[in-house]
């Protein structure tokens, strides 16, 4: 009774309320633990890796990435890395991924800004096929060397170069290509095969052609933006676990700079192309010239900037024609993505025309083109020996060779004040999706990152680490991407009968059997904490009952 009057004032201090507070916390902890349990696992085991844009049924010529950067361990050398044939799935068949032998793979360099190549590096490939006509045996035993006779199918390449329009000169013939990695049993030491495929040329060049881990890291679901999706579901490296076919080359600055003078002319523009021989039918299929069937300069231009109706045109045209297509220029000056982002995130799109993007994509960042970005970074216009009247805006990856190599590269490149990064060339660690998004929202011009999209696609690094030396890419993956989700396909050793049957869908198994102890453990830990909390609560209650407090305000309590 007397408690009632006294407790008109809410007892905030004292053991009573502390106890109560503790009880509440414990109860909350217990319930939280149980609810965590009830909410299920945090890691997504159910999502698929196979959500890729459709690849043409001609994957060998499909350009997927181009990197250009000053070699960190050889400061006078520039490294070009060009990748083809994305989504090469290790053991996804099993299968292997040769380069096309009827195509030419090129890396082009423009040092004087006229959008025409001044240096062309050209690779052509040849098969050495000991399989016979009717078997598809890739190897008949472990492969310990690129020339191992157990490897029944392999490729070699020839590298030719042409500088300043002169005829092509062969640099090397029949150099070994690192084979597709078909599994740890067949290729127990792939590093050795990789090392054998790294060629040092006379004169100091280094070259490599062969399979490698796909160094690109992004969540492809970012592009759902273009089809009515949003950026809510991101965070998974869609390319994790896949391989690509890589061509890498390391050459000294002097070989690619204008007039062989990298001090006066440090900026080069780079793009990669694939060509196939043309055929004239009118006179009975005698071969004509070569048709460009794929082209790549800066990353994501084809996906994000060029509209779908122009992708085919873009692939076929050489850079010197870019500025002649008004539709392409319009998409750069009036891009679609900022409008989509504005519609979804109410983030105001920067005002058009986007001359800052013209600088980023078409001319290089320079003060000499009357663009809004007041910095001289990577345009051929900044080369001393360039005739500005001959300069042609075009889409290519532009690298300034004189920017020093930084010891701590930032994945946001130039936008994070790391001038060695994208869009000044492209390093393997640059997060081009985030940089691209920021640039599209105007960060290049303002110099400030846009907060609303600061997390970008939430994939900030490749799943495999890069090595510190040429060719820098991780070894190709040897394990299938979808082996966990598979219902048990044909074993690697069994010659699979090519009946159209596939393993059935497993309707109830969302978790692979070897990995469901992880969620059990995690919730077990949480639950254990909750259970412990219960014990604590009961003990506490009993304790307080045995020894009541002497607080004057307290009523009798249990």
């Amino acid at each position, binding site marked *: 009774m007397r408690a009632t009057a006294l407790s008109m004032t809410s007892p905030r201090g004292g053991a009573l309320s502390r106890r109560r507070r503790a*009880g509440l916390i414990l109860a909350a902890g217990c319930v939280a633990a*149980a609810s965590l349990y009830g909410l299920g696992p945090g890691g997504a085991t159910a999502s698929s890796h196979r959500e890729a844009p459709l690849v043409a049924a001609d994957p060998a010529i499909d350009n997927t990435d181009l990197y250009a950067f000053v070699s960190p361990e050889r400061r006078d050398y520039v490294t070009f890395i060009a990748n083809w044939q994305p989504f090469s799935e290790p053991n996804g068949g099993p299968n292997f991924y040769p380069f096309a032998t009827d195509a030419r793979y090129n890396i082009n360099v423009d040092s004087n800004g006229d959008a025409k190549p001044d240096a062309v590096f050209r690779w052509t490939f040849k098969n050495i096929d000991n399989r016979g006509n009717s078997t598809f045996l890739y190897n008949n035993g472990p492969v310990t060397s690129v020339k191992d006779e157990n490897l029944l199918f392999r490729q070699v390449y020839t590298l030719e170069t042409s500088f300043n329009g002169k005829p092509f000169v062969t640099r090397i013939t029949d150099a070994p290509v690192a084979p597709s990695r078909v599994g740890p049993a067949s290729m127990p030491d792939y590093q050795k095969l990789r090392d054998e495929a790294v060629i040092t040329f006379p004169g100091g060049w280094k070259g490599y052609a062969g399979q490698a881990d796909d160094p690109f890291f992004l969540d492809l679901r970012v592009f759902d933006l273009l089809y009515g999706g949003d950026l809510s579901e991101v965070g998974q490296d869609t390319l994790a676990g896949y391989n690509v076919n890589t061509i890498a080359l390391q050459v000294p600055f002097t070989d690619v700079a204008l007039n062989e003078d990298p001090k006066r002319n440090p900026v080069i523009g780079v793009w990669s192309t694939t060509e196939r021989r043309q055929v004239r039918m009118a006179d009975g299929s005698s071969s004509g010239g070569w048709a460009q069937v794929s082209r790549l300069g800066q990353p994501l231009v084809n996906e994000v900037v060029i509209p779908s109706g122009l992708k085919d045109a873009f692939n076929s045209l050489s850079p010197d024609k870019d500025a002649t297509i008004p539709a392409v220029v319009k998409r750069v000056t009036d891009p679609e993505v900022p409008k989509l982002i504005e519609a979804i995130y109410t983030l105001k799109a920067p005002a058009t025309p986007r001359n800052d993007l013209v600088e980023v994509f078409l001319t290089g960042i320079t003060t000499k083109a009357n663009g809004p970005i007041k910095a001289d970074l990577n345009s051929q216009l900044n080369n001393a020996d360039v005739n500005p009247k001959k300069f042609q805006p075009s889409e290519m990856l532009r690298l300034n060779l004189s920017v020093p190599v930084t010891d701590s590269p930032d994945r946001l490149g130039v936008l994070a004040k790391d001038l060695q990064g994208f869009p000044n060339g492209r390093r393997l660690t640059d997060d081009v999706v985030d940089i691209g998004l920021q640039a599209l929202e105007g960060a290049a011009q303002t110099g400030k990152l846009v907060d609303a999209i600061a997390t970008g696609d939430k994939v900030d690094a490749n799943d495999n680490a890069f090595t510190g030396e040429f060719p820098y890419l991780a070894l190709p993956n040897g394990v299938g991407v979808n082996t966990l989700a598979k219902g048990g396909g044909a074993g690697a050793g069994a010659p699979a009968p090519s009946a159209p049957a596939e393993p059935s869908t497993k309707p109830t198994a969302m978790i692979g059997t070897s990995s469901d102890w992880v969620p059990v453990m995690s919730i077990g830990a949480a639950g254990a904490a909750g259970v412990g909390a219960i014990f604590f609560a009961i003990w506490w209650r009993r304790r307080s009952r045995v020894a009541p407090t002497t607080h004057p305000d307290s009523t009798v309590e249990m």
Partner: protein
Amino acid sequence: MTRLVVGLAAVPAAVLAVVLVPAAPASAHPLGNFSVNEYLGLTLSADRVEASAVVDIAEIPTLQDRSDVDGDGDGSASDTERYSYAATTCADLAAGVDGRAGGQRLVWTVERAEFAYSPGTGGLEVSRLGCWLTAPAALDAPTEVRVDNRYLADRVGWREMTATGVGLRLVDSTVPSHSVSEGLRRYPEDLLASALNVRSATIRVEPGAGTGVEDSAAVLSGGGDPLSRWMAAVDRRFQGLAGGTLTPLVGLLAVLLAILLGAGHAALPGHGKTILAAYLAGRRGRPRDALTVAGTVTLTHTGGVLALGLLLTAGTAVAGEEILGWLGLASGALVVAVGVTMLAGLLRRRGRGQHDHLAGHHHTHSHDHDHDRDHLGHDSNTHEQGRRRSGRLGLAGIGLAGGLVPSPSALVVLLAAIGLGRTGFGVLLVIAYGAGMAATLTGAGLILLELQRRMTGAALATGAGPGGLITGLARLTARLHTATPVATAGLVLLVGAGLAARAATGVF
């Protein structure tokens, strides 16, 4: 034959037979005019494997086979001819179904064979072959069964397989237990799915409880969302533990897992948390109340599971789903009864006119009232006790209702354990399960109470409190408490009615 070499995109002419053309007349064979669709339904029991096969043959193959059926060439297929054709073809089918149980080949005998025609499109007929096969197998120990369907493997068409167990538990199965095409009678139309192409099934079986409960467990715990599926997966793991080799460590782990599972299941919707919330809110409950409800729920649940489990093992004639449906109905009815009791009590008290005073009085207290000592001399002591009694009864009712519907996973575990002869262990697991449930419900109740107390406390403290909004909300709640306990009683009633209705739709 140059004229028959068509361009790349052109297809052999009549193949275009089905070329959709939207105006396709309704046919029993929407999959095409020359497909041969197959369905194989496996039933696994302890001593044999039964397979019921259906082959749905489209117009052209039916026509092609007609000469085989019509033995005497008289143009019509008599009953005898059809029967003998069915027998021969089923023998071929049996030869094409390659089954192995624990490595031993299954030898099929054809128990029954049927073959019939029915009208198709274009004035042609389609046909349907039904074969019932059986093969002896020793499945009284954990075994892996693999069945491959290679009959007419090169023909275009739908291939489907299902597997169910009778007296066996299907621990792991690559095929579902129900046919999506209802035995090749209705093919689902999905633009984003290719025709089923399931040609093999791998099933691990273990001796155990009947499928009735399995089905209900699957029905109740299988949902489309990741949460349910995940729970189902962990349940299976739990079941695997209970049924596996019993070392002390595994036993401890199983008990712990039971506790956690119980906690988790109680965290899911159901088990009376909503009602508990409404009840406590309306009754300005105390921690004791929360504990009471939790305890009651646990006891009821454990008892229910034990009772139902023993009942099911005794007589498997009862379908698990039905029982659960009835229990759900009973639970809902009970909640309705509690709600009615609350309402009646309130009305009675209002008639006596003492309610408001008590309400105000109770508002200011922030501790329990259950000790008689506290209220010696209270002028409403007896009334208080009466209220308490009816309150406890109400709480017990809530608890009973919450625990009345046994959790399927607990049921299955108990039955599995009983089936393996570890009844005691099974009971222990169920009790541990109940303890976990109690923990969660207690916690939930305590939180609710504390929140409520905070809010009312803040409402009374003038100006003090976390914020204007919360203060306002608390004041509103306080006013609601004083003004409309009837509303909360009504809420309990409604919820109970809803529960009962939902269960009723499942039962009837």
